[in-house]
């Protein structure tokens, strides 16, 4: 197969775009597209300060790389979750230790600014310990992890004065979440999903500049750019619903190229046209958590502080 740009040997074939590209042209094409999506979805301007949430995986490190290549002022935020480490944390092996090593190596090699928050050091418990103590998540710490990450990413973005928080969610991530929310018609979640969530009432603006790239395309970008990322999967994600949905969507994609992209883009169009909300409906006002001061949907403590309180009462 030949590169559409130069006729050389193609290394990436995107059937949904009917586009095959060689290494050189693919590595030019990806940042061009990211720049286009940043503009299209009004994610941020050239002078804004961006905090990129980096996990050590292919998507977040590629996103950081692309934003720097595009000339943005982007720093990194790594959250140490304490996964596959000893009960006291701080071990130098295991999933979290390896992912942290990848992120630090990436930042150091490029002279980039990286903020690190170790959840165990900050709050006294690792994510798996928090999950055990609060009995949340049916033997899987993913829900505790999600609550903690959202809380900490928002806290750091606000405290450090960043204009926007960027995450490396790709199209497969977005389509899998959308698929799950559609199966159960979760109107509240269907209202909120999108490439750009505006900041308000203490919530930082959140953006997903990779939301239109397939997962395979981001892996190809990382590989072709020589970005060292953690290949191993989070041990708790094995058998997760999100991976199951991705596999189902990939089966569909295999038979119908472009199905995943169309599912997501048609959803965005439907949302804009008011399918899930009456245009005059106003979003619900947020409350302030009396403990951490962060915004919360309901009156009283936020879910992160309630979770922490429960964990501390167990010790």
């Amino acid at each position, binding site marked *: *197969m030949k590169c559409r740009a130069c006729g050389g040997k*193609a*290394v*990436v*074939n995107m059937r949904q775009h009917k586009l*095959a590209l060689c*290494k050189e042209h693919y590595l030019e094409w990806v940042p061009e597209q990211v720049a286009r999506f940043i503009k299209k979805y009004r994610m941020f301007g050239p002078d804004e300060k961006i905090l990129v949430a980096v996990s050590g*995986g*292919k*998507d977040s490190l590629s996103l950081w790389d692309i934003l720097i290549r595009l000339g943005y002022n982007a720093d990194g935020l790594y959250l140490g979750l304490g996964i596959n480490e000893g009960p006291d944390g701080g071990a130098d092996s295991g999933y979290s230790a390896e992912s942290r090593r990848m992120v630090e190596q990436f930042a150091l090699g490029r002279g980039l600014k990286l903020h690190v928050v170790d959840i165990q050091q900050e709050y006294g418990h690792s994510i798996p310990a928090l999950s055990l103590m609060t009995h949340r998540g049916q033997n899987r710490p*993913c*829900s505790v*992890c*999600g609550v903690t*990450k959202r809380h900490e990413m928002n806290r750091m973005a606000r405290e450090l004065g960043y204009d926007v928080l960027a995450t490396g*969610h790709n199209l*497969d*991530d977005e389509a*899998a*979440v959308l698929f799950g929310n559609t199966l159960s018609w979760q109107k509240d979640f269907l209202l909120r999903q999108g490439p750009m969530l505006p900041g308000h009432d203490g919530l930082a603006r959140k953006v997903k500049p990779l939301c239109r790239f*397939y*997962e*395979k395309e*981001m*892996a*190809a970008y990382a*590989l*072709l750019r020589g970005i060292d990322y953690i*290949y191993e*999967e*989070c041990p*708790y*994600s094995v058998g*997760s619903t*999100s*991976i199951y949905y*991705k*596999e189902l969507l*990939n*089966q569909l*994609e*295999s038979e119908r190229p472009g199905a995943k992209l169309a599912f997501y883009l048609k959803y965005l169009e439907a949302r804009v046209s008011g399918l899930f909300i009456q245009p005059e409906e106003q979003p619900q006002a947020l409350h302030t958590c009396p403990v951490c001061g962060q915004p919360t949907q309901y009156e009283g403590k936020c879910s992160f502080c309630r979770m922490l309180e429960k964990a501390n009462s167990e010790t």
Partner: protein
Amino acid sequence: MTVKLILRGKEYEVRAGMTLLDALKKINVLSEAVLAVREGEMILDDEILKDGETIRLVAVISGGAQ
């Protein structure tokens, strides 16, 4: 006349002369879920696999908390 495919440390053997896509079908792996690397170079689904070579398959799907 075989080709070795390696995915997450597990080895598979297929006949040489088939395309990468056919080889992936043979081992029940969707092309959408992996990148195929031959001697450090990425290859596409229509590539014919040659006798004696080893193809590294890089899993691309990740998941967990959103």
